[in-house]
């Protein structure tokens, strides 16, 4: 079927998208840039998995995408609240966020 072929090409393009984006992981320079790249990869991977799930009509893959979507927040939240403030701070970390909180 023609539409399946189109979908396979789209999947390859999306994977190529991830591979090209790996350059940002290599270059940085801020750790936040690398984190953003990882977030983008998660989005592309979810798109790939969803397309594969519908074209091969295997509902199990949909669950994989669901778990990824559910957990994609976790990495960013851990990064922001745990890792970033400790990673070679440009100035002593002032914990400005505490005043911002509710």
């Amino acid at each position: 079927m023609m539409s399946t072929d189109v979908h396979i090409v789209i999947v390859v393009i999306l994977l190529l998208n991830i591979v090209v984006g790996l350059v940002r992981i290599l270059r940085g320079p801020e750790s936040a840039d690398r984190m953003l790249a990882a977030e983008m990869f998660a989005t592309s991977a979810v798109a790939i998995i969803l397309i594969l799930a519908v074209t091969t009509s295997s509902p199990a893959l949909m669950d994989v995408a669901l778990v990824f979507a559910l957990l994609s927040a976790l990495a960013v939240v851990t990064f922001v609240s745990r890792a970033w403030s400790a990673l070679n701070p440009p100035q002593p970390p002032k914990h400005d966020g505490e005043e911002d909180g509710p």
Partner: protein
Amino acid sequence: MTLTEWLGTALVIAGVPFLLSGTLGLLRFPDVYTRLHALAKGDNVGLGLICVGLGIQSGSVTVALKLLLIWVLMLIASATGAGLIARTALARGLKPWGL
């Protein structure tokens, strides 16, 4: 091919450029804040169009609802993540580009 299949495939194809431009922005934009801006397009519109297209194509309500749920979860994650990163970057004294 039926009309719904055409429509679904067209929507999926329409979503891809948004994801690609997200990567382009990630690679070419000068600082964290502008890259956040580029990524949001891919996360929100690109994935959204792909989900809608696949939902139309699958022709089943449960699959479409699950796709919608996945999209909403990704929206929540990307919106909160973008806010957190931008806020923390500002608090840590990263200057936005051009200021």
